[in-house]
């Protein structure tokens, strides 16, 4: 009986939603705010409290669902968005496998998708509908690779999460090794919540590499950082853009000092030269975010959500001229517009999309930062 009532309620909701569809744009967002990805998913979600209430001038409604950091849930949420909520675009998720699972739904339902995490190369029909906000891992890690090259690093030890993120960072560092003249000597893995990484670190120190790259994120990335320093490793330790937040420093304490990582410029917005293209946008965002979530709470992840919205905003302006929200025509127009956005300034960088490049960021979207006196500072 309850099911019937619910179905009836649903039918009414659908009808109302359909009638209201002309008035507003609907965006479905799925994020892993619980489960292993939650420490990233939560800041991603926080940003949606701050984003403008309009897209391209029209009112917008964001439906945010939790996918428990599981790909099949992310796909399920995405299906719900496209079939039940008739969204104009989907956004998410913060886990790579989750985002990949969503691309399938996006392609099947002809709905543009704004991925909030880097994705591996996709099949053409999926790539057509998918737009990626964050810097490709290789773009980010190339900053690290070039820095290592400049320092004359010849051997590199790797330790990363035993999950997709660890795989992704390792693959990027590995792909960059030949062109930057270093050799990877270890590929150690650890679990996010492992109490100890002594075994892995011993293996690394036994190999005595010139530098170590950590493929972790947030506070768990501090575990190998601490263990390496405790074991007396003196070489530089590089991280990736997933690590650049405050909990990493809080956890790593003194051992975190000197850690180097690539990131979007918003983390060090104040230190950027006046001429830096994203300075104004980054500063504005950091100010809003820290006003809402506390001093020092700035992080790259919330910035991706913000930039994703900025991309949709720019594209919606164009698409609204061609069709009404809630229609397949609008979704197609939104996709076309996303593919052609030019010089959209986000907190992380400047986006210039093209059919061949559905990310559109360039080297202006990354800087290297270093922990100095308990703060992430621009590495000049």
């Amino acid at each position, binding site marked *: 009986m309850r099911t019937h009532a619910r179905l009836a309620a649903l039918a009414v909701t659908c009808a109302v939603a359909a009638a209201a569809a002309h008035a507003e744009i609907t965006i479905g967002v799925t994020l892993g705010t619980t489960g292993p990805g939650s420490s990233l998913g939560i800041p991603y979600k926080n940003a949606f*409290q701050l984003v403008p209430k309009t897209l391209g001038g029209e009112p917008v409604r964001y439906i945010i669902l*939790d996918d428990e950091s*599981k*790909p099949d849930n992310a796909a399920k949420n995405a299906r719900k968005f496209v*079939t039940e909520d008739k969204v104009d675009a989907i956004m998410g998720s913060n886990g790579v496998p989750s985002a*990949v699972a969503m691309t399938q739904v996006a392609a099947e339902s002809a709905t543009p998708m704004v991925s909030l995490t880097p994705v591996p190369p996709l099949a053409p029909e999926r790539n057509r509908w998918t737009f990626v906000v964050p810097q490709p891992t290789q773009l980010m890690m190339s900053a690290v690779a070039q820095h290592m090259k400049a320092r004359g690093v010849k051997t590199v030890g790797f330790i990363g999460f*035993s999950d997709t993120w660890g795989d992704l960072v390792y693959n990027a560092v590995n792909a960059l090794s030949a062109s930057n003249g270093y050799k990877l000597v270890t590929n150690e893995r650890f679990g996010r919540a492992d109490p100890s990484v002594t075994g892995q670190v011993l293996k690394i120190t036994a190999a005595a590499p010139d530098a170590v790259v950590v493929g972790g994120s947030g506070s768990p990335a501090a575990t190998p950082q601490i263990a390496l320093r405790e074991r007396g490793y003196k070489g530089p330790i590089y991280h990736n853009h997933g690590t650049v937040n405050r909990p990493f420093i809080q956890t790593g304490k003194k051992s975190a000092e000197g850690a180097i990582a690539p990131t979007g410029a918003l983390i060090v917005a104040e230190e950027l030269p006046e001429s830096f293209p994203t300075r104004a946008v980054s500063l504005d965002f950091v100010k809003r975010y820290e006003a809402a979530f506390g001093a020092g709470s700035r992080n790259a992840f919330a910035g991706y959500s913000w930039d994703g919205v900025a991309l949709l905003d720019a594209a919606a302006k164009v698409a609204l001229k061609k069709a009404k929200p809630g229609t397949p025509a609008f979704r197609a127009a939104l996709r076309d517009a996303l593919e052609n956005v030019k010089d959209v300034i986000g907190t992380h960088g400047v986006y210039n999309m093209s059919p061949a490049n559905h990310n559109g960021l360039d080297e202006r979207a990354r800087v290297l930062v270093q922990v100095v006196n308990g703060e992430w500072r621009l590495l000049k």
Partner: protein
Amino acid sequence: MRAQAVLAAALLLATAAAPLALPEFYVTLLNYIGLATLVTLGLVVMTGVAGIVSFGQQAFVGIAAYATAGLTTLAGLSPWAGLVASLAATAASALLLGAVTLRLSGHYLAIATIAWGVAIYYLFGNLPLLGQYSGIDNVPPVSLGGWAIDSGRESYYLIWTFTAAALVAERNLLASRLGRAIRALRFRAVMAESCGVDTASLKLLVFVHAALLAGLAGWLHAHFLRFVSPHAFGINAGIDYLFMAVIGGAAEVWGALVGASIMTILKEWLKDWLPAFSQRSGNYETVVFGVLMLLLLHRARDGLAPVLARLLPEGARQRPAQVAAPAREAPPPAGTVLLEVHGLGKRFGGLVAVRDLSFAMNAGEILGLIGPNGAGKTTVFNLVGGALAADEGEVRLKGSRIDRLPSREIARRGLRRTFQQVHLVSRMSVLDNVAIGAHLRGGRGALAAMLRAERDEERTLLSEAARALDRVGLGEHLFEPAGSLPLGSQRAVEIARALAGDPQVLLLDEPAAGLRYGEKRALAALLDRLRAEGLGILLVEHDMEFVMGLADRLVVMDFGEKLAEGLPDEVRRDPAVIEAYLGGEAGDRGQKNLKPETGS
């Protein structure tokens, strides 16, 4: 029956029409429910009915999903070949895990399944061949004669065809000879063994078949979602499946459907509504689930299916048709030695329960085993019946040693027993309880039962069970739950169950306790008839009048040792016996009323 058939037809029609009427997301949701139902179905039979707890079903889903995804994407095989590989891989791993853990106490298996689930998650995530933590993408859809099943609505029919078939097959299984034995596994495994059920193998069968259902779900999962990644097979998924089984309930296979539906829909609902209550991110969903589970376990431990079942019309069962009894071994001629016990001994720690006990029993004889409380009579029963292993001595049945054999082997050789504290499956009908006794008289397997291809055999078994119940005077109570009968009748059911096994030796542990006068006379008449048919009956009884009037000979035990043996009149006059019973008080009085205790 009519109402049930109408209901079933309506349900089938609704199921078939659902994807045409519902919005697409609801079809997707139903697909998820179908997948979860398959896994939960295995758990309902395994955990709810048979009492084997597993938190590791997701591992079997994963093994199957990876097997088919790997073979179809990497080797380019057809998904149907993937199905075969999936099921083979799950069966093999379940056999291995089950063989290792099912012989141990239940909680070892439960912990082992958790450990196994964690281990396999990390294994999936680290095999480069399986795409590590990213998993395998672009899994092809199942195609049926060139028609690719790649939309949600098409998948619905594929998934629900399998799910509905599995529901029916499981229902058939539980209503079969093997099903009755499975239903005895949880609370009455000792009894089932005494009826000849190989409970260890049966548990393995149940475990493997639940794994196969999970494997089937895994295969469907891979080709419905079209990608496979380790995250769907983490330990939390295993806990969720078990929760579904507990929510739905154990008694009925429909519990799986109920549990899977409630949990899946509630999850969606919570996901929609919980954020409205709190801006703060949190695992409210798991908190709510945990609390609901606690409430359910406190208030309705049997889950929701029994509650719902009460709302449904109940079909009346027909008395099984009389079928000719299966061929039986001719009983040995009266006077042949059936049972010999020689020098039997058993210690529990420092306590000597039985010491150097010897006696023999012939065909066509009722041998009474009496003695004060704690004399060791029930221990002797357990030693002779194989429920306990003897420390010393021999037991021979028809000349061959049985003291090293498990009770199911002893049952196969023609010995049956009843239990002092009744061992009935209280929720099962009287007829089904008695039919367990006839377990060894059938031989068809699980597959035949699922397909209802064993109906001839089943008719024979039920007919035999009904016949045995007629003999103990319970022919009118075939379909009542055994637990609802008064205690005296429950003892009669125990005897009927033993008779349904067509034994040559019968061990009866206090069959007359709790019976009224008339019932006792009827019981005595029955035992008398059985003796005339050539059975040997070993009888433990406290009602002296009953024993003295019935037994051919008596063996008296005290403190685990044989005190006296002989004809009832000899024993009655034996000073040692009087001493034991009356603690040395003036013997004369004792001779008349050798009736020291009632009940136990």
